[in-house]
């Protein structure tokens, strides 16, 4: 009897042990998370470098692993999501080889000089990703770095034969299904139940990051006549965007779309202040003396002759003071005085060319990130007077003037109203990246280690190219997508902790001993 009693106690004990060793609610249980009315079993992401996971001026393997679509796919896995394949680069260095020749730079890393100052540089390594090595798809990440809106519907955009002449994209040939395929066709072969679309950035960014050297093609609806740095006509954008959504939703798929940020919120444009030139009193006076003729004789003469109005003359006056100064720039939107002055013969040809479209930068102008390594250097190493920004104007491609910004802004506003309208029409989840990046630039976005800001290098959101996000920035975007998907489709998908995602890679070329 006692023995039976003891056996009973022992078995009760072991039962207690067996039943008690798990969480009451396990995150790994089916049904803990769900995708609501959306079906996330097959997911395709369509877009440009932002979709591909490009960062630090290159596409590299770990960057792709941190792309927002890959992060999103990891969330979808909790609710029936399938495998998510990406056309991975061969290494973590980033450069591209075309038949052995390097055609794209390696990723940037943060070096430190001997004084401990940060100095972003290109990683010194031999890239191993060969464009002509073809990868078999289909791929779920159809983000093609460099793609503008109309490129996504263009057959042959990934034709390897077109790469040397710049007639095809250098990344797409690696994973295009055929020479004549288009990105949207390849995306549609995935037959996705859910998609993301983020396109339109390069339609203005090409113009903006080249300092407005291109043409605003508003009014020209033939994209085959566009140059690489031109702004796409908003109607062209609208038609293409509509076509893309028609294709992606043809099988009833749901999705998330994102709009275009304002270029004035990204560090590529906001890091170098407009008045980046320090001068002492003596040097300022000396430089002003050189421009006395321009200010007091040439400009008034041009006004008197009706070549320019008084307003333009005021805008063009050059005046340096002790302290921080705006550099002199060449502004394409100013009246070109070069030929008039040459014909008049009142100045030598060198001066005529110098002052042709000359003015100083103003507070509303944006100096591009690369200008920081040009301002103050010598245009001609043998001429100690040829200081860039003081004696020699900064070239057009290093400055995005107020007027150039306005063209970019108008196009962006147009594109965004199209995106929002079509998102509504197709009942898609929508992320307002424009609002997010504005908030990022104006104070930051909070997370568990403080504030994510758009400060170059230290802000945590932007990578070393000043344009593309860091892995942490991409994780933030992925979280925003999860939030709008949860809201739109009554889903319950988990977010990620963005603090667990890297930002900047410190690395010095060459190796330390």
């Amino acid at each position, binding site marked *: 009897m006692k023995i039976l009693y003891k056996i009973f106690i022992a078995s009760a004990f072991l039962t207690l042990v067996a039943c*008690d060793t*798990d969480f009451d609610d396990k995150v790994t249980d089916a049904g803990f998370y769900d995708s609501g009315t959306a079906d996330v079993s097959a997911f395709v992401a369509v877009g440009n470098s932002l979709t591909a996971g490009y960062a630090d001026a290159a596409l590299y393997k770990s960057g792709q692993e941190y792309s927002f679509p890959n992060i999103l796919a990891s969330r979808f896995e909790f609710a029936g999501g399938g495998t998510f394949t990406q056309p991975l680069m061969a290494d973590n260095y980033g450069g591209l080889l075309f038949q052995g020749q390097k055609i794209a730079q390696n990723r940037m890393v943060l070096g430190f000089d001997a004084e401990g100052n940060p100095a972003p540089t290109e990683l010194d390594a031999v890239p191993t990703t060969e464009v002509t090595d073809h990868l078999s798809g289909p791929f779920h990440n159809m983000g093609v770095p460099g793609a503008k809106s109309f490129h996504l519907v263009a057959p042959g955009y990934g034709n390897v034969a077109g790469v040397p002449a710049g007639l095809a994209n250098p990344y797409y040939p690696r994973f295009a299904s055929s020479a004549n395929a288009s990105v949207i066709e390849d995306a549609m072969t995935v037959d996705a139940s859910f998609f993301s679309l983020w396109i339109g950035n390069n339609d203005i960014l090409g113009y903006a990051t080249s300092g407005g050297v291109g043409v605003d093609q508003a009014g020209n609806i033939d994209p085959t006549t566009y140059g690489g740095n031109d702004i796409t006509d908003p109607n062209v954008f609208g038609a293409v965007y509509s076509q893309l959504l028609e294709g992606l939703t043809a099988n009833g798929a749901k999705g998330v779309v994102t709009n275009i940020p304002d270029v004035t919120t990204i560090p590529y444009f906001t890091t170098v202040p407009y008045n980046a030139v320090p001068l002492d009193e003596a040097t300022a006076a000396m430089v002003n003396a050189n421009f006395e003729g321009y200010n007091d004789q040439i400009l008034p003469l041009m006004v008197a002759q009706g070549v320019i109005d008084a307003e333009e003359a005021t805008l063009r006056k050059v005046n340096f003071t002790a302290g921080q100064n705006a550099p002199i720039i060449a502004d394409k939107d100013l009246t070109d005085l070069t030929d008039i002055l040459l014909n008049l013969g009142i100045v030598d040809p060198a001066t005529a060319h110098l002052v042709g479209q000359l003015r100083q930068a103003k507070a509303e102008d944006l100096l591009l990130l690369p200008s920081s390594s040009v301002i103050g250097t010598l245009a001609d190493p043998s001429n100690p007077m040829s200081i860039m920004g003081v004696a020699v104007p900064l070239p057009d491609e290093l400055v995005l003037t107020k007027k150039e910004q306005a063209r970019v802004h108008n196009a962006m506003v147009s594109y965004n109203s199209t995106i929002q309208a079509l998102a509504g029409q197709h009942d898609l989840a929508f992320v307002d990246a424009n609002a997010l990046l504005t908030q990022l630039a104006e104070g930051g976005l909070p997370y568990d280690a403080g504030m994510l800001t758009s400060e170059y290098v230290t802000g945590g959101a932007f990578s070393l190219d000043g344009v593309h996000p860091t892995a942490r920035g991409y994780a933030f975007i992925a979280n925003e997508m999860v939030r709008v998907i949860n809201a739109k489709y009554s889903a319950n998908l988990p977010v990620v902790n963005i603090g667990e995602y890297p930002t900047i890679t410190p690395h010095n070329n060459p190796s*330390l001993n």
Partner: protein
Amino acid sequence: MGHTGVGVIDNAEGAFFNPSSLVHLKNRLEIAAGVSVVYSKIQWQNQGTGQSERTHNAPSTPLYIYSNYHINDQFSVGLSVFTPYGSVVEYTTDWPGSHLVNKIDLSAFYIQPHVAYRINEKLSVAAGPIIAIGSVEFNRNLSRTMTDIDGNRSNVTIDASGVVKLGWHLSATYVPMEGLTVGATYRSEMIMDPTDGDAKFRNLPNSPITNFKDTKISAELPLPAELLVGVAYEFDKWTLAFDYNHAFWDVYKSLDIYFEDESIPDSKNPRNYKNSSSYRFGAQYQLNEKIALRAGYYFDQTPVQSGYFAPETPRGDSHNFTIGGGYNFSSNFRVDVAFMYIHFKEINESYDHYSEAGIVEGGAKVPFGGDWKTSGLVPSIGLTYRM
């Protein structure tokens, strides 16, 4: 018996609970030896991010050897060796809490000689030194995100072994009447202070801001003082015991690691333990001459305070259940078996005192938390020889 024993006069195991009780042992020589196998499982999950983790802890095997030699009616002497602390906690490398710990292997064992003296019929005392020998091996990632150029997480391994520290113990036993025993034991605090440990850094970025060379480390790890008080009552075939333990854990404020290489900032890891108590109840029923049956329960309070729940010791309060028995092969030999189940309640807790270094984070404190569920199973076996 619920790990009670301070008031129990039974065998050489008294060397652990209360050496002064050993004068009451009748035999000239008693040696007891045994081993336990600790199977523990730790589970963590974060409901916001869907992350989850289970540990793959190697079972640890605390052992003991207790001995007591009865010189005469007044004096007994003996030597004991046992492992009061020891565990391996191993998470999946690079798990979400890897900036706090990937793996930690802690062990301490005590060599404890004793001299016990019987003052009179009712009262006896004992004292002796404790020689504590400890070692620790500990690996964590340097931050939540730092990697080399290929994406491998930068990490550090701290290794200190053969650290020796001296302490002492004091105990007393009082038998107010037949069958009732009251006892108390005190073990002193021992602060293990390795000065010659090693730190090895791996997968560092090739950068002057992370140029950490492998170096020596020193640290301080306290083994707290403990006070044990107990009472046992024997009647018929029964023995009932109650113990109260108090561990003076508030000595453990912070785990600080000092690197010999000046260029590496010292690592300060707040722990802020509090003193903790445990309450133990045990019962034994002597079925017959050969067989004894045992059962017990104890409540173990955690020294960990809220907000300081570090993954290397994810323990809240626990309820512990034991069953077991003993079998006398002969008047010389006895074998004891026991089985203990350690139950921790599911708890949602965090460690809020980690500072993330880095050019972006700049030393900001970032919490690490989630749901925790720990459990343990400890079978044990022991042999007693008496002469």
